[in-house]
């Protein structure tokens, strides 16, 4: 929306509160407040995809070479590291 959402008038609301712009959740970067993030040891990664499957946030993306990397939505929950078949994922604290 061009206007800040807390400035919108009732007349400007879409009927039924429908959000007509699809995929707007993309703008909400849930990775912003993580305190740790996963790091893959590619020498031991099998590219099995379990980490991608179990991630609750769609916070892991598959790279073109078949390995996996966190994205802006990773919240640092550590489930991928816990479930990794080879144990090649380490949770590392964020800087700052």
């Amino acid at each position, binding site marked *: 929306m061009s206007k800040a959402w807390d400035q919108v008038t009732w007349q400007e609301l879409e*009927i039924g509160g*429908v959000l007509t712009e699809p995929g707007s959740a993309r703008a909400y970067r849930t990775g912003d407040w993580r305190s740790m993030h996963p790091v893959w040891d590619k020498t031991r990664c099998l590219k099995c995809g379990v980490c991608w499957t179990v991630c609750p946030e769609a916070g892991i993306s598959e790279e073109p070479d078949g390995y996996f990397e966190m994205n802006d939505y990773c919240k640092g929950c550590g489930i991928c590291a816990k479930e990794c078949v080879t144990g090649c994922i380490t949770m590392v604290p964020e800087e700052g």
Partner: protein
Amino acid sequence: MGQRIGMEVSIAVSHAVQLARAEAIAAYPITPQTHIVEHLSSLVANGELEAEFVTVESEHSAMSACVGSAATGARTYTATSSQGLALMHEILFIASGMRLPIVMSVANRALSAPLNIWNDHGDIMAEKDIGWIQVFVENGQESFDHHIMAFKIAENHQVLLPTIINLDGFILTHVVEPLEMLSQETVDKFLPPLVPYHRLDHKKPVTMGAFALPELYAETKMAHQVALTNSYQPILEVWREWGELTGRHYHPVEHYRTEGAKVLLLIMGSLAEVAEVAVDEMQDAGQAVGLIKPRLWRPFPFQDLRQALAGAELVIVCDRAMSLGGAANPVMAEVRSALYPLAKKPPVLGYAVGLGGRDVQPQAFKDLVAHALSEIKQGPSEEYYMVGVRG
């Protein structure tokens, strides 16, 4: 123009829904709505109505399914009563907040406890605030007519609100009466296919039923309030069109023998017809008592009601429900509230009549008018009254 036919009113309602070409029906059976949905399910099974009939496991699911189906742009219908309506309660607000044009029959029935399957308005009066359009009908013909019109009203892009047609359980649903049945051709001309305003479509994705923070919620309620209030004109326009088509003209508030009447009875639903008989008898005996029959309950017809009542010397509101421990019976409360701002306003007394299907004869109305007149003379002895209670 149509065909005069004898039919059980429930079946007539099913036919209205069939003629309206409903596309999706999700319903759960509850006395006394059962004949409506049973017949519709037969029509769907026989291929006489091309619709999805979803047999859900509860009324909560029924309304949930209706919300889903209406969201995809299907013309959606359901019916319920009493406990079933109560069970749908949380979804009713959602259906209207999402501005989905669902049409629902409520075969009015008393609420438990104790368990009572007979007619009163307890079920719908517990749903005054759901933000739906609500209409009351008095007989079989009106039941048939208003269901067809309901789709046209609900689906109007100036309206986009779910709509309830209230018909008295058993008293209307289970009576065989004559009525004029319309042809498919006539109804098709009156009611074109549904054109959804918004719909769930993977080719053009939208989000429905989103979340609203405190900074937005009040604005959404204002938008809804304005839509519901402003649906008044589109409703009258549809009724006007129907009047031209069929010769049957409907109004937000109906009057019966009110000219020169200083005492006005007020009641909604099929008991209004019984009250008419009482009014005839009272007028024949020289009593100037008239009858006001509100038909449009939501949006509340302020002007029509004020015009109807302002000149009276006494208004006697007959509710078919109570608000236990409340300031007034439901209809009585709203009538008083509507009259309150007027400089000159009549006293309003309220009676709860025919609760739980108690038989109401014309004499009962004559008795309560006499009671009201005496109460007004001596000063009302109670906040509101209940009729016919033994003990």
